[in-house]
């Protein structure tokens, strides 16, 4: 363990932390659940510690404990949280209040939800400093201006005059960082600050945060599930799982020489690459010059054409707002295209859902990003998977049950899940059930709309492997919508890059992901964090060189 000897002069020292919560299962007596147990670490002034783990690992809970705070029903029941040698868990309400927002600040995942939409950004950024009486309004404004400059926000002089809805998501996240830095805190807790952002935006925010931390010598806890991100920004890394420490060491050691199996799995995740199919001439699905839009004349897709051979995978990549999900809606018929046509198996598909026959509907199925909302919470797995069977094939009784069991086997889940409700499944299991529902229709094409982006890396890899296995077994084709280049490398045969509703690049994977690049593809590929220390600096350096060269 690093620096255990120097715990005395650590800024934040967490010792043997234990956090519990009470859960209320319906119809049963309340239960006490241990969320975090036996977690200890030290954080020096000006250093960054990355907390990493999958959802439910307790990383946010630990982060909030640095503010002596527990979310609804969560109690810190054991251990110490020493800030400058003083245990903040023993402080009374006023004592804690004088620390929160002054000495320790918090940056939330969704800046859009964390800002008050009714107030100007500038007022919100300096609010904590004023409330705590740390500085006068003039001083605070000056500091905010300085921070806006450090964080690279556009027009720093007038930025504070704007309202939250007038700036982009990436800028809002940086404004939130400015808000946290404004009172000159000793420690900032970053709770997944870049998770909700596009890769191209993420890199800017990441660079800004790193620069600001270095500039102000603030210590930080950086919480994320993305090891590649944390490798760029932190000095030490703690890997958490089920509320316990798996591994704790310097970033270099954890990334380059992980000691535990779990860490090794995290480091090596998504390094699978699949060779593309050699013959890509067939056209099961053909999209020709499709344009589409919402409402009165607002066009989201402009003249998009691509095709997909039978039994292969077409990956559609792009950041949010690029129109990739809209394209999926056009293919399903939920959004009729205004121009162009879609041919499936040599026959033109009717534009709107209403015009399509049951059999046409059956042959194209869809898997959603959020399995939670894609399944009726009041139906059991048996009903969810069984409905397409009775709807398309008229199955019922024992025959239907047998087929549902078969499908559950296919998605590597046992029959004991038959009578569970979606809420009784984990995120990965839910997505598997959603895949089984799509499979039940015996489709020829499955549209996958970011099916793994809401999942933890290891679980996501399991889902990807399952999809590949199913493709081998049933020769189903996939249109796979994603923003993640690593996934594209892993599963695609052909790739379409989209930007602002236009097709930027389309072709076999080997061609699209190889130079010479167009500007946008280049930016997209370079923005994907790599599991390598110093990657961020390198990318930024090349960017500076390029702009200097121009």
């Amino acid at each position, binding site marked *: 363990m690093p620096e255990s000897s120097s715990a005395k002069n650590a800024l934040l020292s967490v010792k043997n932390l234990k956090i519990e919560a009470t859960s209320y299962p*319906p*119809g*049963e007596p309340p239960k006490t659940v241990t969320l975090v147990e036996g977690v200890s670490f030290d954080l020096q002034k000006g250093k960054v510690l990355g907390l990493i783990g999958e959802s439910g690992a307790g990383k946010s809970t630990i982060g909030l404990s640095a503010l002596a705070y527990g979310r609804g029903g969560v109690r810190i029941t054991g251990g110490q949280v020493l800030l400058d040698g003083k245990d903040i868990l023993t402080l009374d309400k006023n004592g804690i209040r004088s620390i929160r927002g002054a000495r320790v600040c918090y940056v939330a995942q969704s800046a859009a939800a964390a800002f008050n939409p009714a107030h100007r950004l500038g007022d919100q950024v300096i609010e904590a400093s004023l409330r705590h009486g740390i500085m006068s309004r003039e001083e605070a404004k000056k500091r905010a201006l300085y921070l806006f400059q450090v964080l690279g926000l556009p027009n720093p002089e007038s930025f504070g005059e704007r309202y939250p809805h007038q700036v982009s998501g990436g800028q809002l996240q940086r404004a939130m960082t400015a808000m946290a830095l404004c009172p000159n805190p000793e420690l900032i807790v970053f709770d997944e600050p870049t998770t909700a952002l596009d890769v191209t935006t993420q890199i800017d925010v990441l660079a800004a945060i790193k620069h600001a931390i270095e500039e102000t010598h603030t210590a930080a806890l950086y919480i994320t599930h993305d090891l590649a991100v944390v490798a760029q920004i932190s000095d030490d890394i703690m890997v958490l799982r089920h509320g316990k420490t798996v591994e704790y060491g310097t970033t270099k050691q954890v990334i380059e020489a992980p000691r535990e199996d779990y860490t090794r799995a995290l480091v090596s995740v998504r390094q699978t690459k699949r060779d593309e199919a050699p013959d890509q001439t067939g056209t099961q699905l053909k999209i020709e010059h499709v344009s589409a839009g919402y409402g009165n004349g607002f066009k989201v897709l402009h003249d998009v054409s691509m095709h997909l051979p039978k039994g292969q995978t077409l990956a559609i990549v792009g950041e949010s707002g690029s129109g990739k999900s809209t394209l999926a809606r056009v293919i399903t018929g*939920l959004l009729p295209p205004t121009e162009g046509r879609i041919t499936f198996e040599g026959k033109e598909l009717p534009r709107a859902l209403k015009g399509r026959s049951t059999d046409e*509907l*059956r042959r194209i199925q*869809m898997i*959603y990003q959020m399995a939670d909302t894609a399944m*009726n919470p009041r139906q059991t797995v048996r009903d969810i998977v069984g409905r397409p069977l009775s709807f398309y094939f008229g199955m019922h009784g024992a025959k239907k049950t047998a087929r549902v069991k078969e499908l559950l086997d296919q998605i590597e889940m046992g029959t004991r899940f038959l009578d569970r409700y979606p809420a009784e499944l984990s995120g990965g299991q839910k997505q598997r059930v959603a895949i089984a529902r799509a499979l039940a229709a015996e489709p020829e094409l499955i549209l996958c709309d970011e099916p793994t982006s809401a999942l933890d890396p290891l679980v996501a890899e399991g889902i990807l492997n399952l999809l590949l296995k199913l493709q081998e077994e049933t020769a189903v084709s996939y249109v796979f919508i994603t923003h993640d280049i690593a996934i594209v490398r892993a599963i695609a045969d052909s790739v379409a890059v989209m930007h602002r509703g236009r097709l930027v690049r389309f072709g076999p994977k080997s061609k699209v992901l190889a130079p010479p690049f167009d500007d946008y593809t280049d930016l997209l590929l370079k923005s994907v964090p790599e599991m390598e220390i110093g990657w961020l600096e390198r990318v930024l350096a090349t960017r500076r060189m390029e702009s200097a060269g121009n």
Partner: protein
Amino acid sequence: MNLRAIPFSAWIGIAGIAIAIFCALFAPVIAPFGERDVVGDIWLPAGGDFLLGTDNLGRDLLSRLIYGARTTIFVALAATVLSFSLGMILSFTAAVMGGFVDQFFSRFNDLMMAIPTLIFALVVLAVLPQHLWILILVMAVLDSTRVFRIGRAVALDVAVMEFVEAARLRGEGSTWIIFREILPNTLSPLLAEFGLRFAFSILFLSTLSFLGLGIQPPAADWGGMVKDNKDGIIFGISAALIPGAAIATLAICVNLVVDWLMKRTSSLKGGRGDA
């Protein structure tokens, strides 16, 4: 279902409703006197032969209360169930179909709601012949406008969820979407509304009876009994308060049960809930 999981408050509600229903079913057996029999002096105090005293005509108050449970509960329950069936089917159809159907139903509903309920009811009931089923029907139709509004709001919320979209993509018809996808996910707010509407139905019926257009005398109903005995209050006679208390108790009991049901359905396996 586990009987132990039912909270104490719900047991109180269940007990209250059970007593009321028992009274309604076995009124002739348990009532000490007849519904319409004048058995004593007017406004006798409680005690003696008359457990709760007598009313403004000298009829036994307890007996009338027991008989009154019959009409009050039957009419209010029938009207509420009917208004819910009507309001929910129409509102869900509007939410699922959207477009013209939605506009037509919603604007018609607005039109109905623009007319003050009580005045509307008074006019219609004055014109139509005085049958019990007409009374129930008028109450149901007027109440269904409220159900329509809340039903459409909650159904719209669910209708945009991805699992409904998935059902549409499968090619399911509106009936399946309404009854299998949307209805189970909107039960919590609608159950809450049911409890409230039932209580309002009792009050509305009482109002109508009070104005002479509800249950016709000499048949007993709780609202009418309040009206019959209201003059007694001036003389310090509490006869009017007893049926009033009965109305309040029943309304509270129904809501205690509904609260519990609502918690149960919304916590059930991660439903969208507020409990």
